[in-house]
């Protein structure tokens, strides 16, 4: 940059704005835009372990990977699992976030900052480390969860080993890990609701549920939209939880789209095929974002 600054007095002038933007822009273009364009091309090739050895083994197969994708039962399983995780997990997480935000932000509650921080802690923890911890929490015999449920008379559940329970277990853990983030966003939105609106509602004799229904919810609508899109996008990228806790099992019931991409691309080196999987993820996220901009 100093070079660019000196050059401003030289006959050849680079606008300082361009000089300031250039380093970041170069990095983003070279290491993000270029690879994304490369991914499009890659998804049209049969790039596999032989191509990793030598690029001469590379062939252009047009939509071959995509048609293979549509015929691959594993892809449909991964898509279904991911949709399950998103459809159940995202609303659950957002519901908990809103509940926590309402509690922390309640007029009568003191030490708001302390509660806010405590609820937020899981968000900043390392996902891999908490996934390890939760693996033990879910242990069928020794795990904290079954021991606690045992006290209530609920029989032991093989949380991560039972195909029916594995995804719900991951959903529960993800909600625990994430809810604090959206809670902060909801608190910010709640605090921007003028207190006078609640006072007016109370003067009209509105009960708490009525205030919530007719004052809080309508004013939170834009925040809801923002939070849902951000949450859905994040949830579609499910990876570390199943990688650490279940390796996609049992019976592929926790195999997610990104896990499938990782396994295909970096374990079996089917990079062309994995690129096609990545593009499916991209298309889904693009559609969600378009829906958001439409609604706004």
């Amino acid at each position, binding site marked *: 940059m100093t070079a660019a600054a000196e050059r401003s007095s030289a006959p050849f002038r680079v606008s300082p704005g361009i000089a300031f933007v250039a380093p*970041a822009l170069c990095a983003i273009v070279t290491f993000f835009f270029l690879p994304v364009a490369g991914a499009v091309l890659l998804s049209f090739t049969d790039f596999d372990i032989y191509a990793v050895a030598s690029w001469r083994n590379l062939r252009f197969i047009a939509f071959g990977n995509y048609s293979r994708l549509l015929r691959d039962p594993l892809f449909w399983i991964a898509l279904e699992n991911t949709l399950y995780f998103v459809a159940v997990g995202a609303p659950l997480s957002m519901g908990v976030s809103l509940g926590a935000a309402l509690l922390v932000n309640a007029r009568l509650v003191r030490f708001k900052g302390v509660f806010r921080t405590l609820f937020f802690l899981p968000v*900043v923890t390392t996902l891999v480390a908490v996934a390890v911890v939760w693996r033990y929490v879910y242990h069928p015999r*020794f795990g904290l969860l079954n021991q606690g449920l045992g006290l209530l008379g609920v029989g032991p559940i093989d949380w991560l080993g039972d195909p029916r329970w594995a995804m719900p277990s991951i959903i529960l853990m993800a909600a625990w890990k994430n809810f604090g983030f959206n809670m902060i966003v909801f608190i910010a939105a709640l605090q921007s609701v003028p207190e006078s609106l609640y006072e007016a509602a109370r003067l009209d004799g509105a009960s708490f549920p009525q205030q919530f229904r007719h004052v809080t919810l309508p004013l939170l609508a834009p925040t809801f939209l923002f939070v849902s899109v951000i949450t859905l996008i994040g949830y579609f990228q499910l990876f570390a939880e199943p990688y650490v806790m279940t390796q996609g099992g049992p019976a592929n019931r926790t195999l997610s789209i990104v896990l499938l991409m990782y396994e295909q691309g970096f374990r079996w080196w089917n990079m062309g095929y994995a690129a096609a999987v*990545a593009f499916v993820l991209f298309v889904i996220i693009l559609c969600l974002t378009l829906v958001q901009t439409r609604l706004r």
Partner: protein
Amino acid sequence: MKRILTVTGLYALLGIGVVLTLSPLAWMVSASFMPTGEATAVPPRLLPSRFTLDHYRDLVTRMNLVRHALSSTLLASATTAISLLLNSMAGYAFAKLRFPGRERLFGALLAALVIPAQVSMLPLFLMLKQLGLVNTYWGVIIPGMASVFGIFLVRQFALSIPESLLDAARIDGAGEFRIYWSLVLPFCRPVLVTLAVFTFLGTWNDFLWPLIVLADDDLYTLPVALANLLGEHVQDTELMMAGSVLTMLPVLGLFVALQRYYIAGIMGGALKE
């Protein structure tokens, strides 16, 4: 009377929430100090019968955990420093310096937020392989050197720099870099701290990319090392808990110390949308 009931109810719910939120973390800490085998005892123990540091000692002496901690620290610090410099320069320029195509360029960058990072990972890996950067620290740092989110955050803040301040400096003959370094950076301090905390925590906690790029055991970051350790020591509950504590302790500490900035970042980012 009704008020007392409401208050009690609120605190009861908050209390349950806090217990549910903290119990996995509390159990992790407690189990990490238990003698081997005690965390899987039936009936369960919530507190260690005898406080031991054996597992931490094991991790440091036999599992080379210090090395991984240094890896993580180095990578998170380097990524934070580099991205802070690049993002702040670009964010300031997008806010305050006029150049042709500025708005269109910024719009294009924002549009890129739609593309999930995973899409770029396969070709990026091949590219870094060609450059000989796979299995090196640079390979991990490179995709984090600049970020659209970071540029956006700095730009929003830099918009509020008074034009008169910059003009006065220019009239005094200060060069553009000098203005950036000694006027803009100090002015943007709050947002830079926010961005630094975000980046450091994000890089420290990141898993997928270091897992892809690093092949040598020696270079592993803490999360990758921890996931790897799980493969061999899945039965050693107490050891794994000690490893989890060490992995997340630094980021938790950093967050508690700088949470004001972190939370301001989320609130600011959300409200601007």
